[in-house]
């Protein structure tokens, strides 16, 4: 099991990367729609949802590429965990306030906020933490790992 563990973590890293890249694409193509989805949470002040909608999808794309290709994996997994924590809090407050809104997560059209979405993001948060806290580095090109 101990020998397999780093390879399982590598698989998790790849999957996380694929999920982030996939989730980013629609948002990059249509940041306006993503901004409206963020606005529906009614928590972002000063009209900042537009700026957030412009930056977050690219961040997701870059960390997705970083996780898959092994570029700055520590930073990518830390950002991944941070994003997941923020998403969990956003969806949690919307769920508790009884909002029946689309989550704007970018994975599936028409996904609504709710406990299942929170659970899904907790799993991704856990995955990000496992990748970030890995002891053995595999297939990382910058900073370069031994294998």
């Amino acid at each position, binding site marked *: 099991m101990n020998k397999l563990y780093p390879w399982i973590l590598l698989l998790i890293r790849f999957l996380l990367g694929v999920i982030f890249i996939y989730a980013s694409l629609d948002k*990059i193509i249509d*940041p*306006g729609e993503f*901004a409206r989805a963020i*606005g529906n949470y009614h928590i972002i002040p*000063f*009209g*900042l*949802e*537009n*700026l957030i*909608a*412009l*930056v*977050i*999808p*690219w*961040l997701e*794309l*870059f*960390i997705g590429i*970083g996780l898959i290709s092994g570029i*700055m994996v*520590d*930073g*990518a997994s*830390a*950002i991944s965990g941070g994003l997941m924590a923020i998403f969990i809090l956003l969806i949690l407050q919307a769920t508790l306030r009884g909002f029946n809104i689309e989550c704007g997560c970018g994975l599936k059209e028409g996904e609504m906020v709710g406990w299942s979405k929170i659970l899904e993001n907790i799993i991704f948060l856990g995955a990000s933490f496992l990748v970030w806290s890995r002891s053995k580095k595999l297939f990382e090109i910058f*900073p370069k790992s031994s294998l």
Partner: protein
Amino acid sequence: MDTKKQIIIYLGFSIFCGIASNGIESSPIPWINQPIELVSNKEDLISLFVDPQIREIDLEMAKSLHKTGLLFVDARAEEYLTNGIIPGAIGNNDVGLLSEKIEFLIGFDKGFVVYCSDDDCGSSEELAYELQEIGFMNILVFKGGWKSWTEAGFEIETHE
């Protein structure tokens, strides 16, 4: 390289790409979202909903509105329509029948475009005013009409 530096690099690239990609977009979103304006003057509010509008548009605007699926109405006499129309456009010599068709398709409140043969034809404006009198609220007159559309090489629809 420590994690903090890596995070800063990722953030820097993302901010740059997010802002740059929005800058080269044909319809960029503002960096800061503007809230929907509060109407405090009752007169403004009434005119917003009550006053019918006729506006003029150019070829470029006509093309982009056509792409969105907006209804086009051909004001030329029916005998000209066999040579071709802007795709999806409707036309009829009888304004009564034409207005019934427009009402059936989009109702009175939704906007539509009226055009005729060229810059000087005038029949699109006449039809626009007639349709406005019937009760249509938002009419756009496509200046340049059929001539500028075909000269630009845009798609047309022909019926035998």
